[in-house]
């Protein structure tokens, strides 16, 4: 093995984040000749709850940093222990999911180690020299940039849904318990305190659904948008929305697709009444097939989809629903 790639496995509520699994899958498939290491940080109980899942992700080695002081996520504390581990094992590449935690944790780790960081990537490649080529959208999705870094490890965060998770063949990873230095940590923990916390209703890992039914402003009303949920349910598919629909309150931000929402990678994406702005399409680059239903033949999506159907979206949805209900 000529290089070492470390992937941060994020765990929340006794589950591993899908994006962490997607990264391991991508690295296994696309990085040749690299040792895949995973690191997981938390209390013993939290790590135990996810242990089997992490064990079967396809990593060669798993580093476990467990301590009761890590029971509650704290960006200052987590960044400190991960930076210690990195100094210790010296990976060539370090990857993390661009979740809400990842987006604050990663820059704090990078700043601690004085290394570069490329955020919110949608593609990663390892060149023959072991250099990470990290591609991300920029200027609100109007441009893509491939970024390299002069410092080691080459560090990037990855958008959820940019890669596909594939359950790997059985492999028995080596487990290493890492003894981090916790001196001074209590003092840091005392500086912030979560007084109240409420979990928002969250659709499960919908971004990796096989079929996604999305709606936009072309649906014209909240009532019509409800048809998207109904159709998705009848089809065993997941609903999604454009930002314009989210802004009008027709759908929750958690199901927005695009630059400021989620990346999705379904086998089939059906867009009803969505114009196909670049910011929306940037969340769709990994969709296998896109069907667009739009009344306006000249809408951008009518050139960007695989199949373009000029038609009235509510009409088509109603027809689908009545067929499926029979």
């Amino acid at each position: 093995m000529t290089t070492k790639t470390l992937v941060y496995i994020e765990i929340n509520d006794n589950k591993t984040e899908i994006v962490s699994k997607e990264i391991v899958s991508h690295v296994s498939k696309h990085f040749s000749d690299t040792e895949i290491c995973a690191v997981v940080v938390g209390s013993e109980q939290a790590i135990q709850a996810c242990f089997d899942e992490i064990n079967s992700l396809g990593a060669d080695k798993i580093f476990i940093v467990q301590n009761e002081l890590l029971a509650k996520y704290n960006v200052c504390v987590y960044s400190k222990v991960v930076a210690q581990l990195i100094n210790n094992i010296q990976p060539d590449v370090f990857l993390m999911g661009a979740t809400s935690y990842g987006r604050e944790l990663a820059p704090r780790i990078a700043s601690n180690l004085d290394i570069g960081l490329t955020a919110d990537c949608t593609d990663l490649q390892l060149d023959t020299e072991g250099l990470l080529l990290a591609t991300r959208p920029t200027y609100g999705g109007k441009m893509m940039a491939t970024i390299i870094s002069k410092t080691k490890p080459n560090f990037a965060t990855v958008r959820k849904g940019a890669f596909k998770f594939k359950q790997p063949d059985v492999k028995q990873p080596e487990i290493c318990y890492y003894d981090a230095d916790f001196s001074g940590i209590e003092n840091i923990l005392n500086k912030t305190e979560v007084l109240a916390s409420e979990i928002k209703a969250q659709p499960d890992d919908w971004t990796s659904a096989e079929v996604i039914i999305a709606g936009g402003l072309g649906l014209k009303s909240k009532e019509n948008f409800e048809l998207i949920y109904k159709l998705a349910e009848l089809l065993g598919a997941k609903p999604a929305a454009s930002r314009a629909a989210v802004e009008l309150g027709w759908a929750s931000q958690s199901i927005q697709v695009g630059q400021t929402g989620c990346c999705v990678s379904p086998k089939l994406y059906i867009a009803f009444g969505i114009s196909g702005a670049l910011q929306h399409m940037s969340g769709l680059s990994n969709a296998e097939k896109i069907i667009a239903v739009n009344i306006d033949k000249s809408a951008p999506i009518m050139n960007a989809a695989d199949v373009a159907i000029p038609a009235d979206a509510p009409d088509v949805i109603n027809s689908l629903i009545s067929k499926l209900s029979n």
Partner: protein
Amino acid sequence: MTFKIAVFIKQVPDTDDIRWTEHNTIQREGLESVINPYDIGAIQLAKNVKFLLDDCEITAVSMGPVQTKDALREALAMGCDNAYLLCDKKFAGSDTLATAYVLSKFIKSHLNDFNLIICGYQAVDGDTAQTPSSLAQKLDIPQITGVTALKEITNDYSIWFKSSSTLNQQIKICHPALISTTINNTEILPDINGYIKAQAADIKILCAQDLQTEADKTGFAGSPTQVKKAFRPVIERSTKIIEENNVTKIADYILAAIQECKEQDDN
């Protein structure tokens, strides 16, 4: 004791106004510049703090080329009390790590007795959201990312509402601290007095020497990340158009496509 707030603002190109050169790069000349919308949210929060505390001073700070003075003048008109521009050829080309370094050196040299730093959640030109965390680490202070509102504040601590995609939280933090905010596109109208004050105000310009930055930590030289290539997203799909007036037939077509995708799965 005066409660001191630093608000970090960035001037960004108006992304709605982007035009392309023939080489597929962004046409920078004639591009309108605006204050990053999230940083206007940061100014708004600073004003909320000032409203609640008797003795409070807001300092707006930006690193950028000389034109950034316009953004700082606007910040003054919106109610900031002082403004500093960190401007030096040596800073040009800084990535977020180098930027956070320069900002941290400003704090250490000119505002070391600050109580609170407020940043925008992210800048709309790069959408990286890295600078605030990176800066908090350099100053070794606690942080909250993405607050939406202030609940309570004293000189020693503050309590904020935060909303992420999964949680709604109330978080208490001890000062000195850094927060970033997801409030954006709030337009604070400068009042007449603010406007007059801003015209007369002196925007202090500080260079590398004033901040005592090390040359190998700023600008291109101090930036580990580099753009290897930039390109416009290409849409590689070739589109088939289905011309069909009969809605039932369209529905059949779509159901067949879904069926096909499920069958693939079985193989």
